[in-house]
């Protein structure tokens, strides 16, 4: 994990990959020693364990230090979970529940029964997709989706949504003021609209940041669009190239004239080249940064870096994808990556011992 806030005892900014500390040994919790999935919001991390005794453990800004890291009783038996800054959403086989993380209550703040789809209807979908629709970030929480979309996966920011269909087509809707819908303009869409620029090119994986969208094609190419103010698209960003502390006495005739083209908003999908060239296997986005894993086990990060979330041992933002050298140096293969708002979590496979 890089960039985690308040997770390690004393460090707020963790700028190099650090193994997640486990409180398991002292408390007998299963956390982090067995296969688990990570979800993160701004101030918390949820670890999902799916074995005979499925549960979710929370860490970070929790109301009581005493139960940090312990499995949440309310989560026993859940199939999937999503965490936002204000609530934890749990999916069970027969129901959905949303728990308010800011209050300690005995019952969920929202719940809904669901009819599990028949086994034959294809692979099960993950949150925020649920049978017949999805769980939004603000009320009304349950929203239906047309079955014609054949939703396979869905990614949400607070203001826009991207849906990947079974055919590999990508649909977006919501606010478009930063080009994050990928239709070439800045207007909003109320209903899912296909990203035409990508038609004919099946996509396999999607992710969203607060104002940008990323997807991977079947062939392992990365497409990006949306706001690039911190270099989160991996395209040249003006803010990252402004000279700090230049002499104020320069007039326009004396100053250097840079002819570089900067991209502030990319309203159509752009193919992002990562050099040396590689195939991307999975991608995840924080608010303003992006992390991608290649088929050869390397992790690349770019975008906002003020909190160390890029993992390059610095607090510098980058508008060019850069490999996180730590994993190569440690002879680790990165298997997957998940980003919280301002941090990054990488699952690795060590060469000698298999663990995640």
């Amino acid at each position, binding site marked *: 994990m890089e960039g985690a*806030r308040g997770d390690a005892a004393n460090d*707020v*900014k963790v700028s190099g990959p650090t193994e997640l500390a486990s409180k398991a040994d002292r408390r007998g919790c299963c956390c982090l020693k067995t296969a688990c999935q990570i979800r993160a919001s*701004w*101030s*918390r991390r949820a670890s999902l364990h799916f074995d005979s005794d499925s549960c979710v453990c929370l860490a970070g*800004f929790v109301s009581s230090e005493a139960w940090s890291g312990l499995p949440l009783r309310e989560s026993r038996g859940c199939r999937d979970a999503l965490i936002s*800054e*204000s609530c934890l959403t749990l999916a069970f086989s027969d129901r959905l529940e949303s728990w308010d993380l*800011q209050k300690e209550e005995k019952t969920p703040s929202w719940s809904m029964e669901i009819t599990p789809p028949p086994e034959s209807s294809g692979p099960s979908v993950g949150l925020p997709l649920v049978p017949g629709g999805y769980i939004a970030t603000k009320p009304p929480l349950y929203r239906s989706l047309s079955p014609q979309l054949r939703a396979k996966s869905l990614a949400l920011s*607070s*203001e826009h949504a991207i849906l990947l269909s079974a055919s590999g087509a990508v649909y977006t809707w919501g*606010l478009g*003021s930063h080009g994050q819908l990928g239709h070439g303009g800045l*207007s909003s869409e109320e209903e899912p609209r296909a990203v035409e620029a990508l038609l004919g090119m099946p996509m396999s994986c999607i992710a969203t940041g*607060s*104002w940008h969208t990323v997807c991977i094609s079947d062939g392992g190419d990365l497409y990006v669009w949306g706001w690039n103010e911190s270099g989160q698209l991996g395209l040249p960003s003006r803010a990252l190239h402004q000279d700090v502390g230049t002499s*104020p*006495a*320069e*007039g*326009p005739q004396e100053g250097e004239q840079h002819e570089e083209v900067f991209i502030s908003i990319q309203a159509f999908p752009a193919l992002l080249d990562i050099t040396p060239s590689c195939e991307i296997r999975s991608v995840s986005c924080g*608010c*303003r940064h992006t992390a991608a894993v290649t088929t050869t086990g390397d992790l690349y990060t770019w975008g906002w870096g*003020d909190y160390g979330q890029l993992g390059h041992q610095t607090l510098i933002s980058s508008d060019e994808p850069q490999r996180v050298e730590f994993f190569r140096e440690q002879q680790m293969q990165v298997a997957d990556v998940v980003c919280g708002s301002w941090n990054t979590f990488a699952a690795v496979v060590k060469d000698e011992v298999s663990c995640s």
Partner: protein
Amino acid sequence: MKTVSSTATLWSKISAALPRDEEEFPLQFGDKVESSVVEMLKRCRRQLYSDATAASRMLNAQIVVDVSWEKLNTGTWRHVDKEWRRVYSCGCLFKVAALCRDDPSADEVVQAVRTCDMGLLMGADIMDDILQVIVRILQGEVRKPTELEEESEHTEVKRMKTEIPRAPVIKEELAIPRIKCPSLESFSTNYLLPLKPVVLEGTIGHWPALNEHPWSIGYLRSVAGCRTVPVEVGSRYTDEGWSQTLLTVNEFIDRHIWNKIPELKEDIRPPDYCCLGEGDEDDITVNAWFGPGGTVSPLHQDPQQNFLAQVVGSKYIRLYSPEDTDKLYPHQSKLLHNTSQVEVENPDAERFPEFARAPYLECVLQPGDVLFIPVRHWHYVRSLELSFSVSFWWS
């Protein structure tokens, strides 16, 4: 507020403006602000009144600034919850305190001024406009330009004066009528109610801004040079390269203004005629506009009545009635639907054939003039030389 002597340190002046202790420092926010953020704010407040490292204070303040900045950029500005804007202002306040605590360098003071300005521009009022109070304290600390710099600016002024601006000749039959100091009643009856444009002469002669000692670039720099203001870059806002940016007044002068410019004084008064409207004085939006000769405001309309007061330099202005909107080809997009597509002084007759048939009125607005632009009247403005105007939007 405690009184401090003039030899007090910067920090003692700032802390005199802050609440006395933690208990007196309000941190109440609505439901939209998550408890995790409130916790960060409380940490900042605790550190303000107790021991902490400079690095830790800066870090916590910056976290509040960063998380609230993200909220301010989420969704449409109109719908941003005011509570988040208040959080942003609080973050800026804590950041300024962290910067100025331990014998700040000149650069840190400039950073602190910029932080106050960002809080004032993007945040919302907290603690009786405390950021305004603090930025005034900080401005006193920023050094004035040296004599050498003032000299070189004078020589540039001499060069510019040899250029003659291209001033249009106003056709008498198209001239906007001019009247000197009409009574409230006569203005209301003859111009406001029938929504007829007029140039008011002799109504702002009393402004200190028009009566004072000669202004100089040096004076403006010393009063406001380090302050950050929104600036429109580009000669007209329909150009592709047009953008808005935030610059300090120093940066703006260096890059875009080469001539004498007047100081922006605080004591300008909204014209008395504004009292004929429905709102009160607080509802009047005052904007100052300064820019070099040649700056064009493309033909557009506004949803409020407007008094455009000319202080320095002159502007060529043309007005079209809202009744003739169909001949003015407004943009279709939501963003620009109150802006015409036509370049008024160089219209494309093929694309906009009806434009030539649209009747208009025109004037050259001189220092001391005030133009009444009735609500939704289309107006086109070209500055003929370095120009400083003040607009009053009222209803």
